[in-house]
């Protein structure tokens, strides 16, 4: 006989929300199995046509592109974010810590559109980088960075960096410094200590960061849309196009469903690969 005050009051709203999400996903799934009726918003009868159409090289390419960009972005973000996370956690001066934290966290709260727009100003043919390089005389013609994969990935790394740094920093902060001291006392120099102790012990944070970075990038829309400008198409752009340009919602739905399956697949693989790391965990 266990008294559980507030139980129903607290669980019901959450259950309703969960139900709401489930309904939305179910609706999506249901739509993906319906035929597209051109010129009408109403779907037709049930069919597997949409999923068959996914096999077409055009769409397969978009899937591959999306996975590739998400993967590259995740890894680049990790490499760029680790030193910052390390500095954030290990620096002793309060002011410096706060400064780094504000600089890292602010972009997170700016929203996709503002961030992406700022990158347009940086990457454009009349933008910052080209202007500086031409002024200095390193180049004669502007380098094309807009509408290229490079531009999209650079902007995506910028978008994902804050969350990566936060997750890495949280993991690093939980590593007991005594482990490093012990390694030093046994004869390990700073580099060796980092490679054999700090890095392995931060592995759970690395996995969490990579997972989140991949998932976020997979769902990116504004950045590939505005900077890719039609040349670089990720899944989200295709879904939007089909939905609002062609009003082919059923196919858009099937793309989304396939995308979801893909995301879950990649994340499941990551999960399995990181199983041995679970043993470490924070202390």
């Amino acid at each position: 006989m266990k008294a559980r005050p507030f139980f129903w009051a607290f669980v019901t709203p959450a259950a309703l929300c969960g139900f709401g999400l489930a309904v939305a996903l179910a609706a999506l799934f249901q739509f993906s199995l319906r035929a597209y009726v051109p010129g009408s918003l109403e779907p037709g009868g049930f069919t597997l046509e949409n999923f068959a159409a996914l096999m077409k090289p055009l769409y397969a390419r978009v899937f591959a592109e999306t996975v590739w960009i998400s993967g590259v972005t995740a890894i680049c973000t990790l490499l760029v974010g680790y030193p910052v996370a390390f500095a954030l956690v290990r620096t002793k001066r309060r002011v410096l810590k706060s400064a780094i934290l504000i600089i890292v966290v602010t972009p997170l709260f700016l929203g996709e559109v503002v961030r992406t727009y700022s990158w347009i100003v940086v990457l454009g043919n009349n933008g910052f980088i080209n202007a500086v390089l031409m002024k200095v005389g390193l180049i004669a013609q502007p380098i094309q960075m807009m509408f290229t994969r490079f531009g999209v990935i650079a902007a995506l790394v910028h978008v994902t960096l804050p969350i990566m740094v936060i997750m890495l920093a949280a993991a690093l902060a939980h590593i007991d410094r005594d482990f490093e001291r012990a390694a030093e006392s046994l004869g390990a120099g700073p580099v060796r200590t980092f490679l054999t102790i700090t890095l392995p012990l931060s592995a759970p944070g690395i996995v969490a960061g990579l997972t989140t970075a991949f998932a976020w990038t997979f769902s990116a829309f504004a950045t590939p849309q505005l900077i890719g400008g039609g040349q670089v198409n990720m899944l989200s752009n295709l879904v939007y196009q089909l939905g609002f340009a062609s009003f082919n919602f059923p196919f858009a739905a099937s793309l989304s469903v396939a995308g979801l399956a893909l995301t879950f697949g990649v994340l499941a693989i990551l999960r399995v690969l990181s199983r041995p790391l679970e043993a470490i965990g924070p202390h």
Partner: protein
Amino acid sequence: MDDPPARSEPAADRSFLRLEGVSKRFGDVTALNAVSLDVARGEILTLLGPSGGGKTTMLNLLAGFIEPDTGTIEIDHRIVNNVPPYRRDIGILFQNYALFPHMNVAANVGYGLKLRRLSRSQIRRRLDEVLALVHLTGYEQRKPRQLSGGQQQRVALARALAIAPKVLLLDEPFSALDKGLRASMQTELKDIQRSLGVTTIFVTHDQSEALSLSDRIAVLSEGSIRQIGTPAEIYVHPADRFVAGFVGNVNVLRGRLERLDGQNARVSLGATTLTVSAMRLGALAPGATVELFVRPEQLRLAEAIESTMCQGVVAAQAYQGTHIDFHVKTDAAISGRVLVRQAQVDAMSRWPIGSCVGIALTSKDAIAFPVESRPLT
């Protein structure tokens, strides 16, 4: 892993580890104030004191995790002020053991050995040796989280000893263990230290641990060493009131110096005159007020009508198995109470709570301090 070259006769190397004039400040706080210390090779020296007294700072300085502001630190006659921890050849046993969670026992213990570029078979041999020393043969594949507290501590010890360090530093190693385990681990540690002869610095705030384990004790408080000596010296002849109060129980009574008599002093307390040690009185003039520091076992209860040192009323009794502690309210004591230790089994019924008793001094080793005595710097 050869024996280190004999620089001097091991027994005669009194300053294998040496601190000279070492100070360390953290902002406004002076953690250590011009401390000097010599440790002989192979001895166990305990740094004893309350938290914040400077013992942890000293340990960190010896290990090389922090640098002193002034003074020099020498290990094996080599100044190590600028030598980083990974080149100092020291072994540390941390308070929470700090066993690498992502490595098994063999990898943990072998960590320092791998760094020294020994061959696989040499490492294996050393690993077996040192695990046998701590009675953990066969545990090589276990992970730290699969071990009990006592086992973890032994692995940590093995890891520190595997590299045959010049100095072994122990940071409150028994504080996380249960009482029963503590006693057996202390004995084991002492045996291991004796057989290896490694110079050991042991940090603790537990004075009974310090008394039982050490060759010598350095009592630290507020950044200074109050006294260094053997456990007996510290206990029987404390240098100042802090050491007297910190190590063991002590009663403080106020009396008047009648006259000095060589090693002894005649002190009057109420109607009686006592003979106590004059070691800490210097050249005090007769008539001066002194404080007597008396251990509970140096007192005994007596009938109130006997000519005793002072009178009092029994306030509480505490049965301790081997003896009984009596808390007696008396005006002669500065705090208003004295603790008297009686070994007789019938003492509890003979002097019940509320009864009037006399208190007598049974030993000449009680120490008198002048009232305005300042601590040793």
